């Protein structure tokens, strides 16, 4: 079913997506189209509504108006967990791990959903042990094999973000929504995560919110710029970065850069 729909149009599409909070319009009539296989970035100054768009797409917030379509099907009325079950899995701005579980258990919790035994309170945990190999393989993929038995709370920040990616991959999502995956990271960690995203995006579609423009330029096929809740510009990195409107929206930082250069 998927294969023939792929060619027809965007994987994810919003039409007139709007979110109002008591008169304040956080997201204003956004029409977004994310193409299959793309790494699509959502950028914009602070308060532009990027994370709100994410919350709307994954139904962590209900939209005031507008429609969301996934592979041509409307998903506007679905619940957050149902959207995840469709293969649209998000990450969070602050690292979203299960702190008092080991890295292995973090990944395994994602894997166990497909077993359909997650309500079985009378079964032993050992019934999950056969998922360990797959979980270890996923940890290996993000370079965390040696952390398998470490409680997540004791892992360095950058590794937690990598663990989050492994947990997301465990669901084998067809589309990943990453909310500022490199936020608060040192340069070394950023490089590692960029390489990781590049690698795991093979065969998948990625929509990411990102502040770090060098990350965006290295990774993304297409960029949508949001400002004050509305789409300001869209295109590839070069055309967006030359757009005077975008430069104006970012003027604070641009001007500072030019002054120091």
């Amino acid at each position, binding site marked *: 079913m998927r294969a023939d729909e792929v060619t027809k149009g965007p994987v994810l599409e919003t039409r007139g997506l709007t979110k109002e909070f008591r008169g304040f319009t956080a997201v204003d009539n956004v029409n977004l189209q994310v193409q299959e296989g793309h790494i699509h970035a959502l950028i914009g100054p602070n308060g532009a509504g990027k994370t709100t768009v994410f919350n709307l797409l*994954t139904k*962590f917030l209900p939209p005031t108006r507008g429609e969301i379509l996934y592979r041509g099907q409307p998903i506007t009325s679905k*619940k*957050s*967990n*149902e959207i*995840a*079950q469709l293969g649209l*899995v*998000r*990450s*969070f701005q602050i690292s*979203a*791990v*299960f*702190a*008092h*579980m080991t890295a*292995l*258990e973090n990944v*395994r*919790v*994602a894997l*166990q*959903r497909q*077993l359909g*035994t*997650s*309500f*079985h*309170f*009378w*079964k*032993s*945990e*050992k*019934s*999950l*042990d*056969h998922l*360990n*190999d797959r979980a*270890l393989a996923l940890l290996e993929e993000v370079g965390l094999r040696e952390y*398998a*038995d470490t409680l997540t709370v004791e892992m360095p920040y950058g590794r937690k973000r990598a663990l989050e990616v492994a*947990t997301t991959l465990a*669901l084998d999502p067809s589309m990943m929504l990453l909310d500022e995956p490199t936020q608060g990271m040192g340069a070394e960690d950023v490089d590692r995560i960029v390489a990781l995203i590049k690698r795991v995006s093979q065969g998948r579609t990625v929509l990411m919110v990102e502040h770090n423009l060098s990350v965006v330029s290295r990774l993304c096929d297409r960029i949508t710029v949001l400002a004050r809740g509305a789409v300001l510009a869209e295109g590839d990195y070069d055309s967006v970065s030359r757009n005077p409107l975008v430069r104006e929206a970012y003027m604070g930082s641009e001007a500072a850069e030019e002054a120091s250069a």
Partner: protein
Amino acid sequence: MATSHTTEAVNLPSAVQERQRRAKFRRNMFYLALLAVGLVAPFVAYPVFLMKILCFALFACAFNLLLGYAGLLSFGHAAFLATGGYVTGYLLASYPGLTPELGILAGTAMATLLGALFGVLSIRRQGIYFAMVTLALAQLMFFVFVQSSFTGGEDGLHGVPRGSLFGVIDISSNLAMYYFVFAVFVFGFAVIQRTVHSPFGQVLKAIRENEPRAISLGYNVDAYKLLAFVLSAALAGLAGSTKTVVFQLASLTDAHWHMSGEVILMTLLGGVGTLLGPLMGAGLVVSLQHLLAQSPLGNWVSVILGIIFVVCVLSFRSGIIGELSKMYRKNFK
């Protein structure tokens, strides 16, 4: 079967495996020791007193399953304890042919149903709102119990016959009764232990650790919380039913919101989120009440328990068992 499973499925470093195996062995030995203590206890202490502790311990364990492992603070658990107690008491008093285990089963089933109803109405609320909804519903049940005729109203139910277990084992003697109560407690404890260490328990833990993330992994968290709530209500009902058979009475004390508060106290004092904490907490609170009731300080029970509660919350938040296990981990690992 258990050992073959661990060896083939996990290819973790063997040191870790060895450590886990040893920890598991120690834990099993510890539980065996506790079991032995439980079996010998009635020859050392007064069985009725021990049965009271066991009933409240089961109640606290049930409460702890919800607070400690699902992160939900219910302020209405008295309703389930009382429902179990009243239903069992009424049935056993009205139908002399009914054996006690069937009476207990019926009381537990009723508490489970009530738990499902309460759960459906409250589970979507978060934090303090959840506590308030459960409290309100429990107060509603209190009103029902006061007004209904089958509960005996203000007087309660008295002289509930203990009868014979399965119609053959006479449990009118306190010693025989004790072993039955002990078996019920062990069963309840085992159910909780298994629930915590089950695939369901893993998801519950994930929800408690990070609910939005659990949702984004595709879990319908409300359904998991609801199941935890119903299980907790069922075990609270089991505790209430058993208690009625032990003391041969059911009264409004069990339905009062004081009881919902007391179980919170027991659980926090012993250590929330630890398997043994509620047992410890219940033992301590019941013993204190017992001791103080006979001393000149009898009228000060609530004040003294209140002070203990405040001290506990301020200075050792993880409770007695929680602090002990922290100390153990620091010094012996």
